[in-house]
């Protein structure tokens, strides 16, 4: 297997970090992801949109104390893609 055959959506630092965080939580707020990934709000929004378009994550928008609140959680498809990515990685590294 060639390394560049890996899921291109997950094969980027920020998107892989987002999915890795979401694997360990039930849900995460936008600001939490921004703080953890140490990226800008604009870039994070862009990456979340890409993951959302692939149905890897579900994004919910609501209001809390009159401020908009964006909450993100991983979908079953996203979970499966992450597991596939890790397995492919292990295979490639012969772990």
């Amino acid at each position, binding site marked *: 297997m060639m*390394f*560049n055959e890996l899921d291109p959506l997950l*094969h*980027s*630092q*920020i*998107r*892989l*970090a987002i999915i*890795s*965080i979401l*694997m*360990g*939580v*039930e*849900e*995460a*707020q936008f*600001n*939490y992801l921004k*703080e*953890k*990934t*140490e*990226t800008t709000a604009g*870039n994070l929004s862009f*990456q979340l949109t890409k993951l959302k378009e692939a149905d890897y994550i579900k994004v919910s928008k609501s209001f809390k104390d009159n401020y908009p609140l964006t909450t993100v959680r991983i979908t079953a498809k996203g979970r499966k893609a992450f597991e596939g*990515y*890790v397995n492919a*990685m292990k295979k*490639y*590294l012969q772990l």
Partner: protein
Amino acid sequence: MELQDKPLDPQESLQLIQRFISGTRDNFRRSAFGFIFWGTLITVAALANYFLLLITPDFAWIPWPVLTIGGSILTYFYYAVYAKKSGSVSIYGHVFKWLFLCGGLTYFLFIFSCAELKISPTPFMLGLSWLLIVVAGLIMRFKPLVWGGILFFLATIVSVFISPTNQLLLTAGSFLIGYLLPGILLVRKKEE
């Protein structure tokens, strides 16, 4: 280290996954508060009940409603504030929230039923505690809690053969060793 939107090599990928997954995995240790707080509360309530029986038997039950209702309100606010601050709900947090919320309501059901049947609720309370603690310990893969759960299992059997007054001492001892102590060890593990 700021992340870039660039492809990764295999080693970088695994390191990144490890870094972010382990960053969220230890969130379950926030539940140490619950074990320390409720371990102390139930130990104090059981001992207070025991000593009040010697002084004023008619009102010896009072520590239970006062401490458990007050404790429930404080626990709710603690976790509500914590969840708001942290910005995420861990899978452990989600599981524990429902496990202990349903467990708490079952304690109430047992107390209500036993009061109606005029029997001691202690064996049922200790039995339910064994289930909650050992499941929590197995989910967290934290051995002191599993051992704590096993202690409650044994205490449940013992409680059937002793007087209701001595059951209070057994309850205090079980919560001190099987609930409070693992909570303290969990905090120490967190500090390490």
